[in-house]
């Protein structure tokens, strides 16, 4: 069969098709030494100042879901991308593409949410843009935010993953899969009412809290679209070490597990909006864990795996019954099973 001559939904899923699109189109044509690193945020030097810059576009259906709305995502997504890159987020821009006919009240609620979220995260929204398009030309409201922040002293290399070594431990700051399942159950097609709220949150406070206590974090990434499984598959690729995860240690809410069982989804690949995966020096893992647990956004943190010398370049998961299986990048959106 011939190659795709049109963009498919899978190209936006964060899986293999997305990666191919980025590599074979965007990076190919925009190529420069900064972009080629493809980290969550670009690390730049302006005069003697080191800054990180990132941008993200937000589309979500429905706009309002249990635990938040598109406004929370627009702030937290960009703040988190800066934070996991070792930066202290400072300033954001916000652009709105609005569909004709959107109730003013809905837009106002989103904007107020963004203002509150930005205040909580100590960032300022300093510039923006607005476009209104004909009914049907976009789905209610799309938001783009761009952020810049100062790189934390000594954290300039954290985003590269080069500090990771065998013996390191892998931590996550709480239950995974909440956001994806909250949005899924908010779409009325499924007729599932589940007590799950999005975990959407700015993580810079939590990350500060960890960094103020210990400098032994070797890598961080927020596990958004594609979930923790995709983060693992991404960071392990072509490295001289492997990753071993322990299914029994991964915090997953009963309700999230339940919906996943029902739909045939793997929670490892379900989206989060307030979860950071940290790779930390093995000797300091317990200290970092305690530090995470002492913060409101890390109370359910856990050590979920370790960096190992065996199976370099691959992530393996020890299943809850003691079997072993590989964790790879998902091919596209997870689809509900048929039977």
């Amino acid at each position, binding site marked *: 069969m011939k190659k795709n001559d049109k963009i498919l939904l899978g190209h936006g899923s964060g899986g293999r098709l997305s990666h191919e699109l980025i590599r074979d189109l965007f990076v190919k044509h925009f190529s420069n030494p900064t972009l080629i690193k493809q980290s969550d945020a670009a690390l730049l030097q302006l005069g003697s100042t080191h800054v990180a810059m990132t941008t993200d576009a937000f589309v979500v259906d429905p706009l309002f879901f249990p635990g938040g709305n598109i406004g929370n995502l627009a702030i937290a997504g960009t703040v988190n991308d800066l934070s996991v890159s070792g930066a202290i987020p400072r300033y954001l821009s916000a652009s709105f593409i609005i569909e004709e006919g959107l109730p003013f009240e809905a837009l106002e609620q989103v904007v107020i949410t963004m203002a509150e979220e930005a205040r909580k995260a100590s960032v300022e929204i300093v510039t923006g843009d607005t476009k209104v398009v004909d009914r049907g030309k976009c789905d209610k409201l799309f938001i783009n935010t761009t952020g810049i922040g100062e790189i934390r002293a000594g954290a300039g290399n954290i985003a590269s993953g080069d500090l990771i070594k065998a013996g390191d431990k892998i931590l996550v700051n709480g239950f995974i899969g909440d956001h994806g399942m909250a949005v899924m159950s908010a779409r009325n097609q499924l007729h599932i009412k589940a007590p799950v709220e999005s975990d959407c949150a700015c993580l810079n406070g939590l990350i500060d809290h960890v960094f103020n206590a210990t400098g032994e974090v070797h890598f961080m990434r927020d596990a958004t679209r594609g979930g923790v499984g995709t983060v693992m598959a991404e960071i392990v690729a072509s490295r001289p070490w492997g990753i071993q995860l322990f299914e029994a240690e991964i915090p997953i809410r009963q309700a999230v597990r339940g919906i996943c069982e029902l739909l045939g989804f793997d929670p490892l690949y379900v989206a989060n909006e307030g979860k950071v995966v940290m790779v930390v020096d093995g000797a300091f893992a317990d200290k970092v864990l305690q530090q995470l647990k002492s913060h409101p956004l890390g109370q359910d943190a856990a050590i979920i795996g370790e960096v190992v010398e065996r199976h370099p370049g691959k992530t393996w998961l020890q299943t809850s019954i003691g079997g072993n299986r590989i964790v790879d990048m998902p091919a596209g959106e997870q689809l*509900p099973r048929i039977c």
Partner: protein
Amino acid sequence: MKYIDEYRDKDKVLSLAELIRKTSVKPIRLMEVCGGHTMSIQRFGIPSLLPETIELVSGPGCPVCVTSRSFIDQAIAYSKLENVIITTYGDLIRVPGSTSTLDKEKAAGADIRMVYSILDALNIAKANKHKKVIFLGIGFETTSPASAAGIIKAQMAGLFNFSVFSAHKIMPPPMAALIDEGVNINGYIGPGHVSTITGSHIYDFIPQKYGLGVVISGFEPLDLLQSVYMLVKQHETNSPKVEIQYSRVVKPEGNAKAQDMLDEVFYLRKDWWRGLGELEASGMGIRDKYAEFDAEKQFDVEVEPTREDKGCICGDILKGLKKPSDCKLFGKACTPAEPVGACMVSNEGACHAYYRYNKDSQ
């Protein structure tokens, strides 16, 4: 989680695995014919718990995988008609037809919508009275009763803009055909959800005619291991029979109401199976009295000639003759992102499950 964790108890799993190891002396090859089983076996890493005497092979149990390429081609032809909305289970969207997929036709402008059940498709038909809504009915008795109910409901509601394109199939004919073709197996892990509807008697001919055992299994690790244990015991004592391991759900007589509904709407017809070719009385066509809801009778389309990809051995994989890793396309030209064969598309497909969960150890 209740009703799940009990069946994933690590200590019980390991002690059952030990019991199997002690009991199994003669080499035994077991085939699971349900995609849900394939997925569970790989997801939990079951093969790594079994002794060398036991080999598990995947059979033709994934609805997407056995569906013929010509069905996809015909669905694509329907999607190109004016004022038509195609409604389908998500898995089917990426299955390759001869020259395209529903996914690509959707990107090119066809109105193709993913639904979670046929009831969603009926609602789309209700909301779009000026359009024709076609539901792609695939799968075994796990999905066909819902299709039958959907058609009956559409008739009661007078929803004449709704129709079903049926590729529904039944399980016993391919189970017989596989043995007739000389596929080397010693027993079947029988499908759990299909049997909930059909009951267990539909498999009685397998021990009687072929001398092979069938154990209808649940989907959790302990279910599957217990089923393997039951089949191993049958094999060791030369006493093949039909047994129900999944007794908390499956009854010997099945679900009579669902069976009546299937009989009301569908009749058995010759159908094409990937890897097995045409099998008599193995597919479900819609009876004439429901012709108004039968897409095949409602729409006349020209369908492109079916083209199969060279090198794809989905057929042999579905028959359990080969493993996914025997295919030279596996993991190279054929991946879940760019599937060549249907077995790589559905997460119940043998190739997909091997690729996702097991690719290095194969």
